């Protein structure tokens, strides 16, 4: 063997170690990139078929009415929930794996967060492009709306921002939930959701007692979709920071 003279690479720098985690998450891009786009494509095709069927059975006089109704589609929302599940699963399986590779929790978490920010950018750009195509083709030639529904904003910069904020929200909550799972398993998640339910119900009770529902509604109405999604970034940031401290003391269990 002549491997004694083989060049030994120096250990990775801090930035290199974090990028290695990004690469680890994308080693097999099937679950995180390929499958979501395939499912999204399938839903779009199914929707186009449905729109065609509806329009085929609509009297010309009612057409404007139907097209307005198509604006209330929730078809594109699946991808956000799907990607949250992907985030949870990715962390549950790669955390114990990465620690076996001698990765610190800090590097793992920063690399994981960076991975999902990058995925959020990629998916929000993709959805914005699809929205532009949808607009340019008059709703895929059928007046259908999947990526330009009213809650995604009116212009492409608005859409890009809203898509991004929505992805960050679901990723961050997913990452925080996964950190709780990795550290405390099912008991931790149960405690987390019980706590969350108490906070939400307590907030609702408080709004009812103080008759604050109108002010609550007005707040979001005034903030608009863009403003409301901007506020969601605050929640995302809190979830990401909390997840870091939860994961920092987690141990890989088998």
């Amino acid at each position, binding site marked *: 063997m002549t491997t004694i003279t083989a060049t030994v690479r120096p*250990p990775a720098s801090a930035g290199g170690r974090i990028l290695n985690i990004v690469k680890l998450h994308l080693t*097999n891009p099937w679950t995180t990139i390929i499958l979501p786009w395939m499912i999204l494509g399938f839903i779009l095709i199914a929707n186009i078929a449905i729109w065609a069927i509806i329009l085929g059975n609509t009297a010309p006089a009612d057409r404007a009415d139907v097209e307005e109704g198509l604006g209330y589609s929730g078809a594109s929302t699946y991808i956000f929930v799907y990607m949250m599940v992907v985030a949870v699963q990715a962390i549950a399986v790669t955390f114990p794996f990465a620690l076996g590779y001698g990765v610190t929790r800090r590097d793992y978490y920063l690399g994981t967060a960076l991975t999902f920010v990058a995925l959020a950018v990629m998916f929000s750009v993709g959805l914005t492009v699809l929205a532009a195509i949808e607009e340019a083709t008059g709703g895929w030639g059928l007046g259908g709306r999947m990526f330009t529904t009213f809650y995604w904003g009116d212009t492409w910069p608005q859409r890009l921002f809203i898509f991004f904020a929505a992805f960050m929200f679901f990723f961050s909550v997913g990452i925080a939930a996964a950190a709780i799972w990795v550290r405390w398993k099912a008991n931790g998640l149960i405690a987390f959701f019980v706590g969350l339910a108490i906070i939400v119900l307590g907030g609702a009770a408080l709004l009812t007692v103080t008759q604050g529902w109108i002010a609550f509604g007005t707040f979001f109405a005034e903030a608009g979709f863009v403003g409301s999604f901007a506020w969601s970034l605050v929640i995302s940031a809190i979830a990401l920071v909390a997840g870091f401290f939860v994961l920092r003391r987690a*141990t890989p269990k088998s």
Partner: protein
Amino acid sequence: MTAVIEDKVIEVTGLTKRFGSVTAVDDATFSVERNKIYGLLGRNGAGKTTLMQLLTGQDFATSGSIQVFGQSPVENASVLQRVSFIKESQRYPDDFRAKHVFKSAPWFFSNWDEDFAQQLIADFRLPLNRRIKKMSRGQVSAIGVIVGLASRAPLTFFDEPYLGLDAVARQTFYDRLLADYAEHPRTVVLSTHLIDEVSNLLEHVLVIDEGRIIINEDAESLRGSATNLVGTAAAVDAFVGPREVLHRDAIGGLVSVTVLGLTAGERKDASAAGLELAPVSLQQLIIRRTNTSEKEFEVSA
């Protein structure tokens, strides 16, 4: 370079780890020297895995100190980059195929030898394109063994690395480990139940029982430390006298005893007294010194 080479890779002092009321590691103090192969032996639940998780920063000590390469391993990238820890229970990402493991491992181990990895993949006949979820237990173990060997980390831990590997594959592992270790010396800590199989590999033995390090000895001197004496009950009893007997078996009029530390002169006397002397295998010795029945040990193996 005038720097003194650090001889101790691991130094553990008064290490204790409790899980609630269970003390998994109990006041352990020992050190591991550079470029030796250590056996970490003990029964199921003795604390082997917990100890290795503490040494690799995967778990947090309740009290005591751990120094790996002179520093605490916890969240310490400069230490952990030199450590590879292959667990029997290692989980792999669900959607991974074996090729994804070998694609990603070199990013984390700067000493990774790709040629060696390819050779090991061939030796173990590992199907690279099969999803890990669909693999047999032995094939999954082979992945860990290959990563542990090809990563050539200065400090490598193997925790029961060969669950489900057949005898041929296990021998391949021992052979490759020894050959590669000879060319690329490094520190290896191997935990196992199959004590006799690895007996010739080990240079130093640590035995842990109920969280305590009960044996910490050079393997060579440990192997020579006990002797089996077989003879008639009268002859055996006359010779043994007040000596400490680790184990005693009687079949009919014949008695077999295990005693510690016979000198050359005493061996001669024993032979003259008509006793038969036989070496004690490492496994038997450890079973006798941990006061567990052989049966128990074999069941857990």
